[in-house]
């Protein structure tokens, strides 16, 4: 999964999508994940980082992570595999 290149994200959790002009607010852990995604980190790497920094367990994070990334996809903030291959 990859965040669209033109998406801007501030440290404060403000996300702007210039394609449709929509803006979003993201909580700090969300910012951290989006930034890791922007760096092309794999799910395994992201999981390791989060589990290292936060008091949570693998199952909880896995569930929340896929919920979150599905939402990013739904909001057109990520590229699908097809788009990436183009």
């Amino acid at each position: 999964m990859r965040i669209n290149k033109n998406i801007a994200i501030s440290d404060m959790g403000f996300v702007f999508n210039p394609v449709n002009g929509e803006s979003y607010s993201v909580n700090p852990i969300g910012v951290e994940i989006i930034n890791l995604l922007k760096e092309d980190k794999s799910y395994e790497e992201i999981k390791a980082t989060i589990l290292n920094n936060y008091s949570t367990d693998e199952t909880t994070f896995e569930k929340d992570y896929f919920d979150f990334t599905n939402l990013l996809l739904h909001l057109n903030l990520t590229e699908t595999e097809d788009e990436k291959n183009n």
Partner: protein
Amino acid sequence: MEKQRYERPIIKKLETGMPNKFGMRTEYAPMTQIDGVSVKELIKEYGSPLFVISESTIRSTIKKAKKAFTTRYPKVQFAWSYKTNYLDAVCKVFHQEGSWAEVVSGFEYKKAIANGVSGKKIIFNGPDKSEDDLRMAIENESLIHIDHLDELYTILELTDVINKRPKVAIRVNMDTGIYPMWDRFGFNYENGQAWDALNKIMRSGKLELMGLHSHIGTFMLSASAYAVAASKLADLAIGIEQKYNHTIKYIDMGGGFASKNTLKGSYLPGFDVTPSFDDFAEAITTTLLNSNFKNSELPTLILETGRALIDEAGYLLGSVVANKRTSSGKRNTIIDVGVNILFTSFWYDHKITPAQPFTHYTETTQIYGPLCMNIDVIRENIDLPLLNKGDHFVIHTVGAYNMTQWMQFITLRPNVVMIDSNSKVHLIRERESMETFSSLEKVPEHLKKFEL
């Protein structure tokens, strides 16, 4: 290095020019304790869900209500409306504070007697009093509030076999400008039924007409409706005085004062819109003082206030079972509290506060219970901080009607504890067990065995 508290990642669309109601978040701080007792410890010790009643809140609320009336009127008597919450410990706090008992069934009547309330201080309302109930009430010299003519005739017949003069009042219903008008109970004022019933009582010579009663509705948001009701009851009392030279001892204004809950669909939170005890007291007492009672014959003012006295003293603690999303992407949170134990969620948007620290991020969430039924929704749309599975929360203002109208459905009813004024926790109703139910059921002999 200590790890940071985990919160699930969220993303929320920003809608310009559309702050949530009043541009405010719903919650600012977690509720980690109630009257000095940790919520987490309470759940650990007594399980989840758990009803918690604050004794000091009950006491301070009834004191406030009493003060509002007694500073304006010389003779005031509160009677605790048992149906609102008849856990014995709760009733006894009210009785210690000087409240009589107001009951509406033989079951409640016996509960009041068992709680040690003298028969003379029990007000017996309700349309369904059996002959045995009436007999008991007459023997104990309780105040019987007659609901319909059939009841009046039954009481008159009983005077032939019981050597006591029944103490009675009638329940009067009336138009107070409130819609819908409650005209199912008692005798109507406008069409003359009430006056007619009073004449029947006086002419029988067998009953002691003690007072007049009305209960104009529940969760009343208008104090002025009580002024209308008080003036109509005063009219009837003065009519009786003039015609029979009989002085009525009390006027009972019933219950109905709104609590601080927020009605479903209401834009403003209940805290901001419900009249205060002072508002209700001012409307009622001014009307009585300005009516034509002779000063020496001012009737005692009885109040059967229910929900406004107990709602805020009750909390329901619970835990998050799971988080989900609907097919349309909406956040759903499942909790271990269903509408079967939180009956009032059909009427109110109950305030819910997480019981552990949270950040300022929120998500619009639908909260539903564990009942596997579509109606089992506690809050349809609440802007809630992010809760994880296993997190605890506090539902506020649940003291009225939930612990009497709760239903046993697919789960067992939970423990109820009371926290006393010294922060000591007392179990006041034990959670139900399998035995509670198996002890009531009987299986016919031929159904006892089967093979699968």
